[in-house]
């Protein structure tokens, strides 16, 4: 009797928990489902057909958005920006982090804490002086201007993460490489970088998300349609097609799906990265 009561309570508890978790799951996924559902309709049927799964699936919106809406250009730009910024961040921050962790030079701590301080100080409205600067040196509407700005955005965090990683890493392999006649740069490239793969994975994922989703600097620095990344393009597109919701939803799907797929493929690293972030902080 006692055991039965206990078991019953446990089962009902777990059912309530699952109902709660399922409700939140549905509320997370439903807006995305709705986006895809509406993307598959025409501007006429979206107002009349209220069924959950439309009777006629209409894939033409994706083609229209991709070609006429300019999403092929926006998508290509987003890929360029994301790849070059992330590669830049990994190379530049790992070089610096390696020096901060392993090498010796005057002013080492000063420079390191300069990067750390940038993480501690909130800097809202940093886009104002950045735009002033870019106007002054004429780097607005330039791919590399935007890329360099975005590399700097991810730099401090990546340096801190990699330095902590290098500090914990055993120097044995580096010593072995040194005996084999490897220079500092060689050790960084052949030993330290490959060993730091777990930390680099975290840096790659978080910065990819950050660059892919970045809007404000893209908005202020890139006015040429052929240079705009997806988020900027979406707002331009929305302004131009404010009444054609299915087409807009197709555009949103094009912008959202790659990042969701990358997330699903890499979610282990993301969750690990976030979790370790808590214990460090």
């Amino acid at each position, binding site marked *: 009797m006692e055991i039965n009561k206990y078991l019953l309570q446990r089962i009902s508890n777990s059912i309530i928990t699952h109902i709660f978790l399922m409700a939140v799951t549905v509320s997370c996924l439903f807006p995305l489902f709705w986006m895809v559902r509406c993307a598959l309709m025409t501007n006429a049927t979206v107002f009349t057909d209220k069924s959950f799964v439309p009777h006629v699936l209409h894939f033409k919106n994706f083609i229209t958005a991709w070609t006429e809406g300019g999403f092929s250009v926006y998508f290509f730009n987003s890929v360029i920006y994301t790849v070059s910024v992330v590669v830049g961040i990994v190379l530049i921050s790992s070089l610096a982090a390696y020096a901060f962790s392993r090498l010796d030079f005057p002013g080492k701590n000063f420079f390191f804490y300069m990067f750390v301080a940038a993480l501690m100080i909130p800097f*809202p409205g940093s886009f104002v002086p950045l735009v002033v600067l870019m106007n002054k040196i004429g780097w607005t509407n330039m791919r590399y201007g935007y890329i360099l700005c975005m590399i700097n955005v991810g730099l401090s965090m990546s340096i801190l993460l990699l330095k902590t990683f290098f500090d914990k890493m055993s120097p044995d392999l580096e010593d072995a490489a040194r005996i084999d006649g490897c220079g500092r740069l060689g050790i960084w490239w052949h030993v330290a970088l490959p060993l730091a793969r777990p930390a680099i994975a975290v840096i790659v994922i978080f910065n990819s998300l950050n660059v892919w989703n970045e809007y*404000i600097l893209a908005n202020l620095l890139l006015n040429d349609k052929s240079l705009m990344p997806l988020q900027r393009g979406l707002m331009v597109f929305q302004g131009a097609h404010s009444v054609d919701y299915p087409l807009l939803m197709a555009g949103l799907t094009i912008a959202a799906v790659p990042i969701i797929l990358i997330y699903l493929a890499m979610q282990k690293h993301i969750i690990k990265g*976030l979790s370790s972030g808590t214990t460090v902080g």
Partner: protein
Amino acid sequence: MPAIRKNSFAARLVDNSKNYLFIIPAVTLFSIFYVYPFYEIFNLSLHQWNGISPHRTFVGFANFQELFSDKIWWQSMWHAGFITIIALTLQNALAFMLALACDRQIRLKKFYRVVFFIPPVLSEIVVGLIWQWILYAGMQSGEHIGLLNYLLVKTGWPQLVHNWLSDPKTALACIAVVHCWKGFGWGFIMLLAGLQTIDGQLYEAAKVDGAGSWNQFRHITIPMMVPVLLVVMILTVLGSMQVFILILSMVGQGLGYHTEVPVTRILDAMIGTNRFGYACAMSVTFGAILIGISAFFKILSNRMKQA
């Protein structure tokens, strides 16, 4: 002997200076895109400048004086504060409840963990535009177009149908809720990680001593979670106070001043009215307020560690 020593010192110096090559790319970028803008924002906040003319007029603290009596600015601060309060309570309570639910041995735990982090990986533009469409208030041949209003009518709540995003009374609340929808996954993951570091033996010991689940929660879970909770709270405050892209994508700038937050004010001063100095004064003030808030949380967490 001294010659060699001098030589080796010189050699070390040359050797050391080669090490600078490792940090030169990072330091150069950082100086151009962080240190210089950081200086420039203070400098510009003391000037009057339209962003184009070669001449900047030094005005001292006039921009700040004007800012302190700028009603719309302080109103925008209150709007951001409102969103922050909603996020601190609603979003963090939800995140904590979900984390507690997933901390136990439960089926589908990994599935939930993956799903709850989908909204945070989406961009604010995408999230804002999807929700704008769901909250859309337009009508076509007697039927509501937006999903929410349509469902409200169909489920028998026609009196709740509303112009969600164009009514100043509800627009901000809608933005706050969507902000929570986008953000709770962060808190959830961090809190879950925190819960999983609590030693299970503590609970075992408490059970042996006859503590019920409420007492276990009250005397083990909460005290052990205080540091993580404070981190999540700081991040929530800093993130929510600076929200603005969501607002741009949900309501644009067409709602009078009802959905203005500090960053949209800064943006408006800069590209709307070309007052770069004033925009920088706003940024400096806002930054100082944010530093004050994080310092407050820092002191709070230190106090709690001592206690």
